[in-house]
């Protein structure tokens, strides 16, 4: 089982076709995908990174279903939130964030299985890659980046970045297994959260994000910016009420073995503000 006490970052350099698995022991205070993504943007800013990042509850609890995407659009920092299956795949690949730097010489597809990465040409059929049932496919076609042929992000920031990087698509397969020590408590909390289902959307008939039963249809286009704390804990504005009970949040974090304090959560908005300021200098 991957170590949850550190942040595991898969860094992919498109220019050099190099891959590095980095383990950060000091980034846990950047709680949530957006916090981690912005801190990684600060660290790798000179390399113009495209960052996909998840938070501590992604993959483990219902409704925590979106992945933060952090990128620099011509000097303007953007945080986008993508629904679908990718947050589960990243978790089950054993990575907290994917950092893609540089620009490929030719249009490139990245085939990622856990921490192994293959650089492939656009002639490869992207749908033939990865392990079915355990993969997410992100494909750039017809001027839009689509995840699993359906989910996407607002505006065209991601499309511009894919174009700049000569990135045609990426496939992520996750095969890691986690076994929380207190599994009975984990199961109990999972069921409680699922039954609570206090969301601001109605159940719909649309494709659903993984680990979310709603099928609301509103997650198709994802989100952009918004409340830092909501984005840090669930990254889904429609599930904000689910995790505003801080006691529940701590129970969920504790059962997974995280050791966050109330101060960590209270300090997060300020920490993110400071990080953005440093990036802007």
């Amino acid at each position, binding site marked *: 089982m991957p170590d949850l006490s550190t942040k595991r970052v898969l860094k992919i350099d498109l220019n050099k076709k190099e891959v590095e698995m980095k383990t950060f022991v000091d980034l846990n205070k950047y709680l949530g995908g957006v916090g981690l993504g912005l801190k990684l943007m600060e660290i790798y800013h000179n390399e113009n990174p495209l960052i996909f990042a998840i938070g501590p509850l992604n993959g483990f609890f219902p409704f925590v279903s979106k992945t933060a995407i952090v990128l620099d659009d011509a000097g303007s920092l953007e945080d986008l939130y993508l629904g679908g*299956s990718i947050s589960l795949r990243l978790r089950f690949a054993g990575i907290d964030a994917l950092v893609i730097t540089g620009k490929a010489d030719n249009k490139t597809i990245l085939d990622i299985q856990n921490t192994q990465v293959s650089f492939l040409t656009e002639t490869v059929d992207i749908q033939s890659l990865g392990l079915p049932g355990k993969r997410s496919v992100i494909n750039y076609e017809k001027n839009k980046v689509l995840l699993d042929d359906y989910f996407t992000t607002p505006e065209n920031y991601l499309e511009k970045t894919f174009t700049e990087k000569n990135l045609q698509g990426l496939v992520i397969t*996750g095969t890691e297994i986690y076994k929380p020590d207190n599994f009975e408590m984990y199961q109990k909390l999972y069921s409680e959260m699922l039954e609570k289902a206090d969301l601001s959307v109605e159940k719909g008939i649309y494709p659903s994000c993984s680990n979310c039963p709603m099928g609301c249809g509103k997650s198709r286009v994802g989100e952009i910016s918004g409340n830092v704390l909501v984005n840090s804990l669930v990254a889904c504005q429609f599930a904000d009420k689910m995790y505003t009970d801080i006691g529940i949040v701590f129970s969920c974090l504790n059962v997974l073995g995280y050791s966050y304090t109330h101060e960590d959560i209270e300090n997060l908005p300020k920490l993110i503000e400071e990080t953005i300021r440093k990036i802007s200098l």
Partner: protein
Amino acid sequence: MPKTLEATQPDQCNGCELCSLEAQRQLKKVGLEESLIRIFRKKGEDPQTVDNSIEIDPRVNMLNIEKISEICPKSVFEVVEKTEE
């Protein structure tokens, strides 16, 4: 009579994977490796849709299949009692 889990309305599946994850939790695992239920996605005929298909490993019938059936938000599954002939 033995009970089996069957996907009687697979066209209703919204791809949430709650069933796969529930089956895994019953085996004290979080993840999709060796999951006894797998969801496959492919592009639907309409660009706004995705077609999901469901593969069930018969070993799932050793688990609490009522609970797996109940967790599905789209009532895709039924627990069927097989009469032995």
